[in-house]
């Protein structure tokens, strides 16, 4: 991977999306300009779902093949996902204050996203607390699969229970999302920007974990 051009592209896309969020997108009818928090909150939520889904898949691959590389992939993805889930919770509570007048009211969507965050926090904490590599990989793969249950729980919570949170943005039969095209374009740009940022952070985390693992192997073999 050529790092500098990739990093410059990620920086540029995020700069353009910030311009679209702050200036280009039109104000919304009921919330005015304050709804623009949505363009940071929603892509962060999407990326955390993506990261945790990848953790789920990599955990399955690990249990099937027992190749340590899959374990590292799952771990790196969960760690970066946790970062974006925390951002989702914080920006979501700011938006809740604007829309509902309270930062946290134990709404089903808020509560299920908090459960999602805690499930993967437990996953990452477990990995940090166990030294035995095989045991850590095996148990965390199972945890990565079990924790995945909290993703549909969080995503569909707005449909299952009475909630103040808006329903997930899904296209209608005519492929219309129910928001203005300029807003949809801004959302698309910010989602692409945040997804690329996730991929870069995932790449950095994976390399760091890989280096740490190699050092651990060398230490175990008694070369240091």
């Amino acid at each position, binding site marked *: 991977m050529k790092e500098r051009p990739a990093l410059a592209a990620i920086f540029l896309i995020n700069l353009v999306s910030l311009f679209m969020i702050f200036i280009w997108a039109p104000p919304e009818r009921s919330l005015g300009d304050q709804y623009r928090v949505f363009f940071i909150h929603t892509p962060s939520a999407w990326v955390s779902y993506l990261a945790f889904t990848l953790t789920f898949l990599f955990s399955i691959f690990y249990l099937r093949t027992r190749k340590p590389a899959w374990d590292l992939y799952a771990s790196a993805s969960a760690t970066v996902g946790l970062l974006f889930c925390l951002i989702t919770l914080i920006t979501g509570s700011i938006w809740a204050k604007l829309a509902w007048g309270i930062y946290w009211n134990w709404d089903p969507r808020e509560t299920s996203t908090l459960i999602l965050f805690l499930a993967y926090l437990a996953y990452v904490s477990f990995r940090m607390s166990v030294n035995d590599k095989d045991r850590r990989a095996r148990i965390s793969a199972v945890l990565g699969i079990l924790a995945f249950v909290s993703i549909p729980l969080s995503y569909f919570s707005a449909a299952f229970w009475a909630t103040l949170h808006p329903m997930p943005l899904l296209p209608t039969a005519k492929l219309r999302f129910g928001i203005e095209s300029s807003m949809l374009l801004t959302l698309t740009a910010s989602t692409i920007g945040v997804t690329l940022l996730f991929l870069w952070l995932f790449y950095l985390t994976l390399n760091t974990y890989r*280096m740490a693992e190699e050092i651990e192997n060398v230490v175990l073999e008694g070369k240091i």
Partner: protein
Amino acid sequence: MNTFELLFTVSSIFWGFVFLYLLWLHSKIKKISTALKSPQKR
């Protein structure tokens, strides 16, 4: 809090957490390089 302040706060939270995450990764890499250098000191 006006709209600009709000958006500035939310963007700062987003990029601030990304920056903190990068700092955490950097500290991990520093630990690794210290582990690599330690036998040379001995």
